């Protein structure tokens, strides 16, 4: 070793031992970081409870897969790959950063396990990682600074552009990488660890070559300077993280660990408060910021502002005043403002709706779940929207367009206010009744299976065809089934999701009682919204199946046989209903049913399966009059058209309403048609 060249721990500047600074910087850095983190935790401890410690193995597995394994990142390929490189680099370099900080205190510090051969391998790994991170960061900077992908723009109503923050952080990361390379290169040139293997073409390798001819004094100065820049930038970076969107570097692992595990369900009004005790609650839902649960505030902290949610959000695409990304960003800004790092916290009782959110923004969501299916960090939106709606319903802030159907649901059990006895009109249609008899389950009649029809399929003239097709298909499959008739009420899937919890509970209780009294062994429905409500929101019911599952089983067992499609010009595409696909994972069964029909030419749209694009929303959303530039259904029909399809098959009555309307609105009548899966199956059954 060259006796003139020393590592920072042994150096002194103007006679002052450098070790004073190398101790002081981390101590001050960690103190500041701890202080900032404590301040950031303040709103979490004042917020609502939210138990998230169930199913620990699932949580750990998910954290490994989604947070450490970055599973969802490549869904956006370039950004995803860049992120994976930077993230993997961070994981590897975190040990190096720790080592570097401690090297400044003791020149021969080695992390346990990183001495000897382990250390050599690690040294190579971290050199490669550092170099790849630097390259990725430069590409990312060019992308953010020059190409500026559309999804990062901040519409004027949502505040200022966030590009500077992204570029600043990328610059800080590059500085850290460069400092380490220079530190290593000058160290090598100075002879600190001569003879070690350096992986060719890494930054370290290049730096070693650049500094090889420099004078010892220059090397020593640069060596020390790079060390200090690294030290200072490292702790500045650490303290900067909790001040903005890069908080996710710290919060994403816990956020994914604590993620919601039951997709399609809705959180209770207040965790730990039973339905019977709801009447005693002072207030309902989220009105002020602290009404959010701690996990929901952690979500706000965790949002990386990547814009994927809003890029997938159908409400945003249709020009409704909702962009899920800004639900998080605005809430985080609110938290930072009212729980500042400097100065006292200043919580406010002012309602969030009317302050940072607008009523239309919160009603615009169809609860389709596209945002949640996309978020790499598992930020939840539906539960927050539902909680905000609960608060609005509690304060009477409900648009007139929704008040009517809600009142009708209260009085008649369906949003149209149709008479209860008309729920069975569809079974009385002469032509239908001649070929298929449907039992109404009352005291005298029983059946093994309940066909839960739900409101739209019972009352809507067009959708009654789905009910009739379902009945014929169930009969053909040899299933002993019946319906509840006037005892059936709306399943209430949207009643709960529109925030009217008490009305939902009434509907649920009435349906539960009628179902249990009927003595059926299982329930089948052709309405995914009913399917979701019955499986996720109801308790102690017999097993529930969607009719596509029943049809698939019957087709596979040979109970149902299909004749081939006769028109060779028809190209079918399957539109995944949100409440069948995303919320319940049923993507393959309906497709398998279609594929069981001989000669059926089926293609998938680009946006399909968990990226399916909502038709416009079901249940109460049919009544809501949104501000929008375009109907979601119209956009969806255009997607089917550009995929080359001329028949859109769906498996949800609400999708059918919206898509059929959209076909008319887009002037595609005659060129495009829509049909429900059950209707299509019904047309192709070979009668025994």
């Amino acid at each position: 070793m060259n006796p003139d060249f020393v590592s920072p721990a042994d150096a002194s500047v103007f006679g002052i031992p450098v070790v004073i600074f190398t101790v002081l910087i981390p101590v001050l850095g960690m103190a500041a970081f701890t202080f900032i983190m404590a301040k950031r935790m303040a709103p979490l401890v004042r917020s609502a409870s939210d138990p998230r410690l169930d199913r620990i193995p699932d949580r750990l597995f998910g954290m490994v897969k989604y947070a450490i394994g970055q599973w969802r990142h490549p869904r956006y390929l370039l950004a995803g790959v860049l992120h994976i490189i930077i993230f993997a680099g961070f994981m590897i370099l975190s040990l190096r950063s720790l080592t570097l900080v401690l090297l400044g205190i003791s020149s021969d510090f080695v992390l346990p396990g990183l001495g000897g051969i382990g250390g050599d391998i690690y040294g190579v790994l971290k050199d490669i990682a550092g170099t790849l991170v630097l390259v990725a960061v430069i590409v990312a900077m060019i992308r953010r600074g020059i190409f500026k992908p559309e999804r990062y723009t901040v519409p004027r109503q949502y505040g200022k552009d966030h590009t500077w923050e992204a570029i600043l952080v990328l610059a800080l990361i590059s500085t850290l990488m460069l400092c380490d390379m220079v530190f290593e290169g000058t160290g090598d040139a100075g002879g600190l660890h001569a003879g070690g293997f350096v992986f060719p073409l890494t930054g370290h390798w290049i730096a070693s070559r650049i500094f090889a001819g420099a004078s010892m004094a220059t090397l020593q100065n640069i060596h020390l300077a790079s060390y200090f820049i690294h030290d200072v930038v490292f702790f500045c970076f650490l303290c900067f993280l909790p001040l903005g969107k890069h908080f996710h570097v710290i919060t994403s692992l816990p956020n994914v660990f604590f993620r919601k595990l039951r997709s399609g369900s809705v959180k209770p009004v207040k965790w730990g408060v039973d339905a019977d005790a709801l009447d005693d609650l002072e207030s309902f839902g989220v009105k002020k910021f602290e009404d959010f649960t701690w996990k929901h505030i952690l979500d706000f902290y965790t949002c990386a502002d990547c814009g994927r949610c809003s890029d997938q959000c159908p409400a945003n695409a249709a020009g409704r005043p909702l962009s899920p990304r800004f639900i998080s960003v605005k809430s985080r800004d609110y938290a930072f403002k009212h729980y500042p790092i400097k100065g006292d916290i200043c919580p406010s009782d002012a309602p969030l709706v009317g302050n940072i959110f607008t009523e239309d923004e919160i009603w615009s969501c169809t609860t389709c779940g596209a945002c949640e299916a996309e978020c790499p960090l598992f930020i939840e939106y539906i539960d927050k929207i539902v909680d905000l709606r609960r608060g609005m319903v509690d304060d009477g802030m409900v648009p007139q367009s929704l008040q009517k159907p809600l009142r009708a649901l209260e009085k008649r059990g369906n949003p149209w206010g149709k008479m209860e006895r008309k729920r069975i009109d569809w079974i009385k249609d002469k032509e239908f009744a001649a070929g298929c008899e449907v039992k109404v389950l009352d005291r005298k009649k029983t059946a093994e299976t309940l066909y839960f029809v739900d409101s739209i399929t019972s009352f809507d003239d067009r959708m009654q065809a789905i009910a009739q097709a379902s009945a014929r298909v169930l009969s053909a499959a040899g299933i002993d089934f019946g319906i509840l008739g006037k005892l059936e009420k709306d399943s209430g899937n949207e009643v709960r999701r529109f925030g009217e919890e008490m009305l939902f509970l009434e509907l649920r209780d009435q349906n539960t009682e009628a179902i249990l009294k009927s003595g059926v062994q299982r329930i089948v429905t052709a309405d995914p919204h009913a399917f979701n409500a019955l499986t996720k929101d109801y308790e102690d019911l017999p097993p529930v199946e969607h009719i596509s599952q029943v049809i698939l089983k019957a087709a596979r067992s040979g109970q149902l046989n299909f004749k081939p499609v006769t028109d060779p010009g028809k190209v079918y595409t399957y539109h995944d209903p949100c409440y069948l696909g995303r919320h319940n994972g049923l993507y393959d069964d309906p497709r398998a049913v279609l594929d069981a029909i001989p000669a059926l030419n089926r293609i998938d749209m680009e946006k399909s399966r968990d990226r399916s694009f909502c038709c416009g929303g079901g249940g109460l959303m049919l009544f809501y009059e949104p501000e929008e530039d375009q109907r979601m259904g119209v956009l969806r029909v255009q997607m089917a058209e550009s995929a080359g399809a001329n028949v859109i098959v769906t498996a949800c009555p609400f999708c059918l309403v919206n898509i059929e309307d959209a076909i008319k609105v887009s002037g595609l009548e005659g060129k495009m048609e829509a049909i429900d899966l059950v209707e299509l199956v019904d047309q192709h059954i070979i009668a025994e």
Partner: protein
Amino acid sequence: MEILVCVTRVPDTAENEIEVNSDGTDIGRDDLVYSVNEWDNYAVEEAIQIRDRVGGSVTVVTVGDDESEEILRREMAMGADSGILLADGAFDGSDGLGIARILKAEVDKGNYDLILTGAQSEGGTAEVGGMLAALLDLPFASLVNQIEIVDEKKIKVGREIEGGNIEVSEIDLPCVLSVQTGINEPRYVGIRGIRKVASLDIPTHGAADLGVDPATVGADGARVKRMDYFIPDLGEGAEMLEGDTEEIISKLIELLKAKGGLK
């Protein structure tokens, strides 16, 4: 400001299929669901908003029977401070004047600055507000769609007149106003809100409590008697013009000219 709002319970037109009963004396009332008369709901919302701005209290009153309590509770859940039920066998079958007389007796017991009614209700006669004002000898404005409180003695009211114009008048308090829909956006009342007011006491006043002579109200006192209900015969359907847009337009112009609609 002490505000009284007169409300009534009616079959909800949105949730019923209204049919004339077999003997033509009334609409078929089996299977009907009832709610508060829509106009009255706007009047109550307006009263609550006025109270929230200038203080005071809102009382809702209805002439009805035990079942009418439901709508009083709904309006109290909206924000009305108290409710009064005016019920007596002697009130059954009252015509508009009878209802106005009963309401007048209740108004006389209180000290109200402003009395609101819906512009009309089930019968579509839109008469009770005006009659009540006449009986009380108070100023009256009908079809009100704006209310501005000037001071303790005066208010300004707007009424929609021909062509969507608004006519604004100044009226001395106390006064009676009949309120048009659209004056505001009534707030939503959920089941939770109704349960919260479920245990509040609603006093019932009968003819004796009010000092109303039973002979002047109810079926006996009614000067208007309903004779018949029927569904008018269906007239001829509309004529549908056919052809492309140009053809339809020229046919329409021809028709309008022929009938004197265009000169």
